[in-house]
């Protein structure tokens, strides 16, 4: 059982010893049950930190912003940033280290094991409570979540309201950390790709009908891109910004600028955007499920990423986020890679 007091104590110690610049954790949100990210710079503010089953965010995204702001400072503070991570988030850090985007010493990792459970899914919870407003969530005994509402406490087995990705999680404890809270226990998992296999077995016309309906909904808000810890290109192929149109720009220059993807949210362009997004995450996505959670029109984006994770595992025996020293999926090859599809 992870006690939030222990986390606070450790975080406070790190701040007092000036080991870290600041701590990024979770704090109580203003509205509803979901917490918000907390940036804690002073040891006396440490009581803001919370840890409950609603801590869904992947805070490793903030390492990207941290790196960017650091590169603009004249005399940057070289101390690491303290970061509260779950199992999935720690794998994201591993991938960022693997790609040499950050160094291991840039981050002080406060790892928390999900211990047999995980984080909840807000929609599943709302369904379960049938309209009642949850006020607070807690980890209970025997893999149960305790949900507080106006009418009192309710105990719900974790399995029933766990986020989909937690149900398919391969390692629900941090794989890289400086301090660890909770035990490294693995939730039994029959098949991490159950949902994908169901999808794979459909005939192609049904698959197409499903994706056409889903991708058509996309409004191109790019929330999936904004929230992803792996989407760190300075310029995205989906909306190129580096081509400045000035008074001197000729029509020819404008015409010659390649526009890979139109910005209009129509089916064909959405498909290219989502396919490119998924391919760019091949062998990098650590299945934190944030893209799907933030999607305002509920596109099952996790499926696309999970499919590539499955293929990487089956075709190339590649697993994401466990070893920061391995080469990334598409920047290496093996002689025995399958080539039965090649003529």
């Amino acid at each position, binding site marked *: 059982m992870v006690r939030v007091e222990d986390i606070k104590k450790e975080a406070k110690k790190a701040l007092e010893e000036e080991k870290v610049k600041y701590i990024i954790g979770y704090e109580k949100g203003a509205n509803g049950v979901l917490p918000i990210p907390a940036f804690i710079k002073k040891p006396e503010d440490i009581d803001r930190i919370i840890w409950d089953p609603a801590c869904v965010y992947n805070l490793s995204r903030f390492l990207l912003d941290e790196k960017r702001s650091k590169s603009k400072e004249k005399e940057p503070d070289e101390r690491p940033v303290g970061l509260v991570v779950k199992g999935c988030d720690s794998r994201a850090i591993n991938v960022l280290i693997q790609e040499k985007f950050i160094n291991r010493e840039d981050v002080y990792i406060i790892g928390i094991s999900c211990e047999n459970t995980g984080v909840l899914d807000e929609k599943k919870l709302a369904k379960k409570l049938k309209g009642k407003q949850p006020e607070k969530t807690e980890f209970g005994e025997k893999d149960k979540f305790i949900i507080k509402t106006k009418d009192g406490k309710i105990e719900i087995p974790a399995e029933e309201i766990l986020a989909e990705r937690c149900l398919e999680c391969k390692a629900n404890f941090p794989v890289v950390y400086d301090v660890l809270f909770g035990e490294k226990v693995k939730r039994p998992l029959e098949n991490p790709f159950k949902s994908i296999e169901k999808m794979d077995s459909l005939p192609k016309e049904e698959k197409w009908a499903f994706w056409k309906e889903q991708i058509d909904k996309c409004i191109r808000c790019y929330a999936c891109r904004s929230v992803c810890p792996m989407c760190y290109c300075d310029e995205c192929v989906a909306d190129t910004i580096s081509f400045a149109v000035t008074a001197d720009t000729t029509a020819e220059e404008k015409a010659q600028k390649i526009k890979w993807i139109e910005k209009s949210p129509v089916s064909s362009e959405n*498909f290219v955007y989502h*396919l490119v997004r998924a391919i760019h995450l091949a062998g990098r996505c650590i299945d934190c499920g944030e893209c799907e959670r933030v999607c305002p029109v509920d596109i099952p984006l996790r499926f696309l990423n999970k499919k590539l994770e499955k293929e990487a595992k089956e075709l190339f025996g590649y697993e994401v986020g466990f070893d920061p020293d391995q080469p990334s999926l598409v920047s290496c090859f093996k002689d025995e890679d399958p080539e039965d599809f090649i003529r």
Partner: protein
Amino acid sequence: MAKEYEPKIVAFLCKWCSSAGSDLAGVSRMVYPPNVIPITVMCSGSVSPLYIFSAFNKGADGVLVSGCHPGDCHYIQGNLYARRRIALVKKMLEFIGLEPERFQMSWVSAAEGTKYTQIIKDFVEELKPLGPQTKLRRNL
């Protein structure tokens, strides 16, 4: 009389082998369907997945990526990187429900003009019953 449907194929051919292979087919006056639009790239490994999606997006009925045989790559290993990447793209396109026949990869060396013509012939034959590709085509 209605004209028979002719599929349009975009072929990304590597400069050192496949492009020379198609050239050989041409100079040897081998007959093959004129449905293919060849685009020479420096290496099959330089074909970004975006090129492939973009080709479908801009109206290709089929896309072919062709490179040197393993071990023959001008850049030593470019085609082996391509093999891995293209496998993922192929699985991805199948996953969203595009017909798997529409996207092919082949190894064609500079001496294999006949193989090249055969690949194009087979490809066109496979594409004809599928009809035009409308799934990913831009329709603004």
